[in-house]
Each structure stands twice: as C-alpha cells, then as structure tokens.
C-alpha cells in the first residue's frame, strides 16, 4: 500500500470527527490525538521491526519483548490501583507465560526461531495476557468488595489469607478467561481475526493464514489461563494487610 493510499484512510477519521461534531460528542480532540499517536507508534514500530528483522540478533528480540511486557504490565496495573507492587507481579505473570509459550512453540518447532515469527506472536499473546490481567484485577476488586463478609467470616475462623480468598480467586480467574474462551468458540463465524485478515490481505494462502490463526487462538487460551492463574498466586496476599486484615483499597 502506498503512502498516498494510506493517507486516504484519514477519510474514516474525518467521518468519525464529523459525527462527533454533529452529535456534540466532544470527542474530536481525543480522536485527533488517537489518530496521530496510532499512526506514529505503528510507523515507528514498523521501522524498528524492519531493523530487527534485518539484524536477526536475539538481544533485539529480547529488548522488544521486554518493552512489550513492561508496557503491558504498566497498562494492566492501572486496574490494580491501591495494590502496592501489582505492576511487577503482572510483569512476572506475563513474563512466565511468554517464556512457557515461546518455549513450547520453539521447542516443538511449531514456529521458526526468527524475529518474523517470535515478535508478532509474542505481541499478540502478551497483549491478550494484558487484557486478561486487567480483567482479573477488575473481577477481584468486585469480589473483595461484595464478599467482604464471607472473607472476614473465614478469617474469624482462623483461615489463612489463601484460604479466605480462595473462592474469590477462583471466580475471578474464571471470569477473566471467559472472553477468550467465548472468542475461541465464535472465531471465524462472527469475525475474521486480525492476524488472519492481515495475512490474506498481504497475499498469503487463506488456508495457511487459518493455520496460523488456529495457533494464535490456542496460544491465547493457554496464555489467558496461565497469566490469570500465575497472577492470582503471586498477588492474593496484596488484598490483605501484613497482620491479615482485608486491606482498605
């Protein structure tokens, strides 16, 4: 696609802005900022990826994945406001998931050990893990607020932090995974996923594109489960004070 053709896509942005002005939604500024940011970020990433793909050096791959994990942890951490140390715990959970996922994908020769495969697939799974982490924290907040009585009843009976919050953790892990599982059930029927669409548009064989999409869907499910479970295990103590009371949030 030429840059002139790309510039025509701004018509979509203009339509959105006109609708916003017409309906007095007051979103014009946000749309403008979002447009500029997404264009600059994606173009920048494109050039960075071009450089990394050419150099084919593992250090660059590690740096890019580390940046992805850090940004994901920072972003998802906003959902855990008031929980001291939640961001590094999210980073740890996503990092463990990434190591396990890539270990399996590369170890079983499912994908080639080149940046062209490792970086996009890592980006997608880390992105999904970020969403799952945010959902898990949202659900946990609601659980702790609505089940304070149940948790305190267990504490009163001499339960440990883990025992007192176990049911809430289980429910939150389950809830955080539901969108991923629902997405798996309807993939291809309701929408053609981004990766597959991108490959087909770029000229790839649709069946080949579908194979990679299946890989991504399965990887998403596994990464959602792993991230949510690891995060629940490393973060449950944060909902309590040192002397085992429910922490005020």
């Amino acid at each position, binding site marked *: 696609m030429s840059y002139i053709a790309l510039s025509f896509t701004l018509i979509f942005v203009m339509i959105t802005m006109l609708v916003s002005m017409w309906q007095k939604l007051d979103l014009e500024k946000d749309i403008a900022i979002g447009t500029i940011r997404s264009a600059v970020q994606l173009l920048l990433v494109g050039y960075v990826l071009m450089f990394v793909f050419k150099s084919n050096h593992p250090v660059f791959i590690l740096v890019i994945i580390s940046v992805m994990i850090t940004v994901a942890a920072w972003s998802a951490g906003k959902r855990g406001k008031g929980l001291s140390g939640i961001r590094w715990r999210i980073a740890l959970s996503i990092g463990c998931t990434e190591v396990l996922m890539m270990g399996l994908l590369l170890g079983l020769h499912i994908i080639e050990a080149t940046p062209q495969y490792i970086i996009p697939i890592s980006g997608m799974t880390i992105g999904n893990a970020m969403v799952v982490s945010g959902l898990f924290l949202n659900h946990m907040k609601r659980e702790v607020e609505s089940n304070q*009585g*149940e948790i*305190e*009843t*267990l*504490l*009163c*009976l*001499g*339960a*440990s932090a883990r*025992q007192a919050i176990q*049911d809430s953790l289980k429910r939150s892990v389950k809830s955080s995974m539901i969108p991923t599982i629902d997405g798996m059930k309807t993939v291809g029927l309701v929408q053609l996923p981004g990766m597959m669409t991108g490959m087909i548009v770029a000229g790839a064989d649709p069946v080949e594109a579908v194979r990679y999409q299946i890989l991504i869907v399965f990887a998403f499910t596994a990464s959602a489960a792993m991230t949510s479970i690891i995060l629940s295990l490393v973060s449950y103590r944060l909902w309590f*004070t040192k*002397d*085992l*009371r*429910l922490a005020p949030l």
Partner: protein
Amino acid sequence: MANILEMNQLRKRYLDKIILDGFTAQITRPEIISLLGKSGQGKSTLLRILCRLEAQDEGETILHGHSYLTVDPKEWRKKICYVSQQSYMLPGSVEDNLRTVSQLHKTPFDMQLARELMISLNLDYLDWGKKSIDLSGGEKQRVALVRTLLLKPEILLLDEVTASLDMQSKHAVEKVLQDWQEQEGATFIWITHDIEQAQRMSHRVWFIEEGSLLEDSDGREFFENPSTVSARNYLQRVPQEESSCLI
C-alpha cells in the same frame, strides 16, 4: 497469674469521629460480659479490634500475657472468635458450613457435637444437604453460631447474634451459650440491646459511651444500681425505644 485478656488504652478514629477513646478493661476469669451502650458508641468496632479484623490507632490488646503484636493473627483468631450480627453463610450446603473449621485446620469433624448443638438450637429439622443460601435469617444465624462453636474458641465475641431470632430461638441460643460457658470455661463478650437478655445472661456488664468504658460492674449490681447517670438514662430509655420499634 496473667489476665485472660487485657485492653489497654485502645483508641480508634474514623476521619474526624472518635470511635474508641482510651478503652481499658481486663478479663480475669471466664464469664459472660454484656457490652451495653447506645448505637454508634464503638461496641462493634471494639469487638472487631479484639479479633483483629480492624486495627486500633493506639493501644494494645494482650492475651494471656502476650501482646497482639507477638501472636500470629490466625492463632489469635482461633482463640478469640467474632460472630457478626449479619451471619454470612459460606458457599455450599449446611454441612459444608459446619465442616468449615475442620477443613480449614485439617482436624477431625466432631459430628456428634455438631448434631447436639444443632438439636439444642432447634435446628434438628434442618436438612444438612440444603444449600446455605436458602436458609432463613434466623437459621443462618444459628448455623453460623454452631460453625463458630465447633472451633471451641476461648473468647467468643457476639455482636447482637439473637437480634433476628424469634423468642423461642433466642432462649435456645441463651441456654446453649450458658451451658457452653459453664462446661468449656469460655468467655463471652456480648453486644445486645435486649436489656432483659443482658439481665438473664450477664455475669458482668461493660457500659460504653463515646468510646470509653463508663462502667465495669457486676451484672446484678449494674441493673439494680448503675453508678453513672448515663447508664441510668440508658436503662430507662432502652425499653421505651424497643417498644416503640415494635409498634
């Protein structure tokens, strides 16, 4: 010999409101203590602090000579247990709730004791397989009490636990708790607004006002001849307030 429990200069404040203001008391022998006072005087907060669900801003609680700071909260709560006015059932059946303590602490479930307590609390008709969420308020309250008694705590903190019970069930709870206190040598600190119940049950009365212990008296002495004007006013006012609530 060390006191069973000491509360030294407990202070607690929420924003600008002082809830407890230097509350000091000791328990020297197992007994039933009624904690009386108007609403909003810090009674529930005191019980929550005693079982360490809340932290005091200042002051210290000491159990058998050991400061709360040196005792693991889990061990502390096995000895000092709180039953709230709003009884929370845990997910699952009645039996799951009764088995909670044995499951938490990996101890054998005392089926016989559980059965005896359920019968004594007029819950012999209850199907143990019934979902706890389907119980009535009064049933929940009594099941919660049995669940706590199976822990055999040394000090039981009771926050208006008979408030949602009919007269018959209320008397059954009183009888069970009196027998339990005598047999197990336990101590109860009991918040109640039912003066007749406090008269029937109390070995001792703590009268609290504005977060301070105004009177610490023998039960009979308190009801016959309260030493403070506030306590006298409280005793005169409560029956009127209760009857107006009933209307």
